[in-house]
Each structure stands twice: as structure tokens, then as C-alpha cells.
């Protein structure tokens, strides 16, 4: 049995006084303090980060982490664009399936706000295909291509999409670690300027600084003496063509579907057992596609279902989605996001989610996507 036994996240936001190393140091010390562990008890570290190599000429971070922590254990850096965190977690889980009696730190961190929007946009575009980059496509642009297609095919409007941001900003207002804690209205989303038609500023997640970490263990004695733990029931990765044009469908993220189906089969959990989920809402359209591709909603229903706001905290729905605020309001420090999602599910399943605590949640799901759908990770946790 593999368990998550602790979580810590830094504030997400524009953290001008903190470097990538500062964020990593804070999150390591934070998660060790939360779990009462000594660094000598950590057998390996998985570290997720996307942009440090591109933006700040900063690679070989594993060795930097060894210096920060003063250890000599194996440390692995994982890069899978915005799915770096989820993939790092999945790899750590695999590591524990291969080795017994080990305790692992999984860290995600990203420093994004030292750069101009054009520099960060270009750096993020490194996760798109060469042809897409040559066409001047940005990530909002790629998701805008999907959104435009989806809206026309299923006869929805931009107002349907706006409800995703409305809901997730409300959730963000309940999360003291979120980048944006301001409640916004559907009208405000509609009135925000376009980034890539039909997506507007308030349809898009932000670039943020932040770091998150969880501790995973299969050491029974440690698990047994830890009060708040959740079990990893499945953590599955799937990939697909990097180019949007090479995919079978424009209104589906196939990698999500494959990873989701595998995770549900492996965990033996039914979709209706999931009471809380963090899904990858880098753009409003992405949450609708995620809900459909994970099998919670039927294909094409998303535009209608989101307007019913049954996945919003406080509604009488059966499944609350993105209680952390999602990428939209919580912020999106790329490498940290996948870990924060798992951390949020950990908080929910262990009754530590305070003013956004979902009641009677025994099972939760985290869904993390890289690029425009080239990688997807689905993790199912159980209390």
C-alpha cells in the first residue's frame, strides 16, 4: 500500500522576493515540518519543473536540491510541460511499487513572474510542436482552437465557458494559498479582453510562482503512526501526439480519456464514488473537456452542465470540482500544479480543507494535462 502522508504548499502568486531555490527550500522544510519527518528518512526525491532551463538557464536542479537539503539520495527531475507535477507523482508511485519500505518527497516548483508576458508565453510555447510555434500559436491559442470548434459544434456561447471561471474564482476566494482570492461575475469574464478568440483574460489561468510538495511512503510503520493519510489507488499517465492537428478529435483530449479509464479500472472505483476532483482548467474550455473525457459528463454536455453550477462548493451536487480554485484562481506555477492538485485532494479526504471542506468525501481524483493534451495524468486517492 502506498500512502500520501503529508502536504505543504507555498503561497501561489507573484512572489518577487523569492527565487526558485527559495521556493524549493520553503516547500521542503514545510512538508518535513508538517509530517514530523527528518531529512534522513527521505529515500528519494522526484522534482517537477518545466521552465527553469528555458527562462533562467537553470538546470541540474536535483543537485541544487541535494545542496539545499544536505542529502545524497537519488533525486530525479521530471519535465512534461504543465503535467510535470502529475508525472513526477506517478513516477514516484511507480518507484514505490518497485521498492519496499521507502519514503519519497515529490516536489513541484516554478518561477514564472520574473519575465515579461511575451518571454513567458514564448517559453511555454516550447511545449508545442514546431509547426504550431511557427504559426505563432500560443497555449491560449491552441485551446482557443478547441474552444471555437466546441462552441460551434455543440451550439454554446462564450457565456457557457465563463461559468467555469466564475465557479473557480469563488473557490479561490476560499483558499488562502490561491493567487486570486477575488470573486468575479460571469459578466466580468464576458467583459474581459480577448487573449485568443474566443478565450478572454478571465478564461485563462495566470502565470504564477509557487511550489508544492507531498510525502509518499510504503513504509508501514511510518504510515501507521501518521494520523492523516490517504491511499494512492491509481496514478496513470497517457500520451498523445504533440500537434493538435494530428489528434483524432479537436473536442476531446484522448490522453485524458485513456489515463482516466486506466485509473478507474486499476482503482476499482466508480465515477459516482468520486466526490471531489481537481481537473486541469488551464483555460475554461479545458475544464469542460476534462469533465467529459474523464466520463463525469457526456461528450458535448459540458456547456450546459457547467451553467447548472452543480460542481460549485455549496451546491447540492454530488461532485465538487476544483475546490482549490483550480489553475484559474489558485494560479498555475506549472511544475507545482500537479502536486497542488493532489495536495488539495489530500486535504479534502483528510478533513483539513477548512472553509471549503467537502463532506463525506472518501475518494478523490486529480487530473493534470501537459501542453494541449500531449500528456495527461489521472490519480485517484482514497481515504
Amino acid at each position, binding site marked *: 500500500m502506498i500512502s500520501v502522508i503529508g502536504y505543504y504548499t507555498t503561497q501561489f502568486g507573484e512572489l518577487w522576493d523569492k527565487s526558485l531555490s527559495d521556493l524549493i527550500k520553503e516547500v521542503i522544510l514545510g512538508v518535513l515540518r508538517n509530517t514530523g519527518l527528518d531529512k534522513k528518512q527521505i529515500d528519494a526525491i522526484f522534482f517537477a519543473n518545466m521552465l527553469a532551463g528555458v527562462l533562467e538557464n537553470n538546470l541540474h536542479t536535483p543537485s541544487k536540491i541535494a545542496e539545499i537539503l544536505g542529502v545524497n539520495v537519488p533525486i530525479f527531475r521530471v519535465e512534461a510541460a504543465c503535467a510535470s507535477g502529475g508525472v513526477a507523482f506517478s513516477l514516484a508511485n511507480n518507484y514505490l511499487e518497485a521498492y519496499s519500505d521507502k519514503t519519497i518527497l515529490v516536489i513541484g516548483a516554478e518561477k514564472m513572474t520574473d519575465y515579461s508576458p*511575451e518571454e513567458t508565453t514564448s517559453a511555454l510555447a516550447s511545449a508545442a510542436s514546431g509547426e504550431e*510555434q511557427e504559426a505563432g500559436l500560443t497555449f491560449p491559442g491552441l485551446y*482557443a*482552437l478547441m474552444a*471555437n*470548434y466546441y462552441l460551434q459544434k455543440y451550439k454554446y456561447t462564450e457565456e457557457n465557458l465563463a461559468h467555469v471561471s466564475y465557479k473557480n474564482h469563488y473557490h479561490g476566494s476560499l483558499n488562502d494559498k490561491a493567487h486570486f482570492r477575488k470573486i468575479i461575475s460571469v459578466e466580468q469574464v464576458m467583459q474581459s479582453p480577448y487573449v*485568443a478568440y474566443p478565450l478572454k483574460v478571465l478564461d485563462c489561468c495566470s502565470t504564477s510562482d509557487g511550489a508544492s510538495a507531498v510525502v509518499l511512503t510504503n513504509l508501514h510503520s511510518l504510515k501507521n503512526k501518521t494520523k492523516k493519510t490517504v491511499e494512492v489507488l491509481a496514478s496513470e499517465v497517457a500520451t498523445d501526439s504533440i500537434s493538435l492537428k494530428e489528434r483524432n478529435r*479537436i473536442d476531446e483530449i484522448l490522453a485524458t480519456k485513456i489515463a482516466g479509464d486506466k485509473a478507474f479500472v486499476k482503482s476499482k472505483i466508480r465515477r459516482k464514488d468520486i466526490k471531489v476532483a481537481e481537473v486541469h482548467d488551464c483555460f475554461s474550455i479545458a475544464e469542460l473537456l476534462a469533465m467529459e473525457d474523464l466520463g463525469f459528463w457526456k461528450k458535448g454536455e459540458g456547456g450546459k452542465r457547467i451553467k447548472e453550477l452543480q460542481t460549485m462548493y455549496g451546491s447540492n451536487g454530488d461532485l465538487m470540482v476544483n475546490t482549490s480554485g483550480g489553475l484559474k484562481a489558485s494560479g498555475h506555477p506549472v511544475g507545482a500544479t500537479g502536486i497542488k492538485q493532489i495536495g488539495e485532494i489530500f486535504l479534502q479526504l483528510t478533513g483539513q480543507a477548512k472553509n471549503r471542506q467537502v463532506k463525506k468525501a472518501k475518494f478523490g481524483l486529480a487530473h493534470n494535462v501537459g501542453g494541449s493534451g500531449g500528456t495527461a495524468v489521472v490519480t485517484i486517492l482514497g481515504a
Partner: protein
Amino acid sequence: MTKVEDMISPVKIWRRQKEIRGLLSKTGSIITWTLIYVSGKDFKKYAPFPVVMVEFENGKKAVGQLVDYSKEDLKIGGKVISVLRKVRESKAEDVIPYGLKFRPLI
């Protein structure tokens, strides 16, 4: 001195030309499109600019900017033809990066 990351690599352009050659003067229809307002740094000068995903008559797909267009041309199902155009800004001494774009088929 020009920083390495600012220089457009001639060898990359040369390699890309071999693929682009086969994609020119082909007609197809727009599967989906967007209008990019916030661009990457090499494209800032052109923003806002439309990008279309096109399905050629042989079923192959490509993405590229739409040029010489009017607002009515931005529609799913619209007919376009592929053309060779300068695709990004370059420095005075760089190779001019030509690549794939589309224009509406009249």
C-alpha cells in the same frame, strides 16, 4: 553580439523548407480558427493575427496564419489556399524565415 537564442538558425530554416515545399499551393477548408491578441515575442508586431487549422483535400492537416483576409473569412468551413510567407520577425543579418501561411480562396 547577438545572443544565440535571438538568432534564427539557418540550418533549421533549411531543414524546414524540405517539408514546406510539399505543402504549398494546396487548397483546403478551415476546421477551426482563433484570433491571437497576446502573442509570443517574435510575433508581437503582427498581433492580433488569425491562425487557422486547415484540412487539405487529401485529408492532411496543417496550422498557419491567415493573411489577406477580411472578417467574413474567419469561419469554420471557409476555403483557403496555402502560401509561402515570412513567418516571424528576424534581425537585419538573419536569414528571412519563410514558412506556411494561408489566404482565403476567392
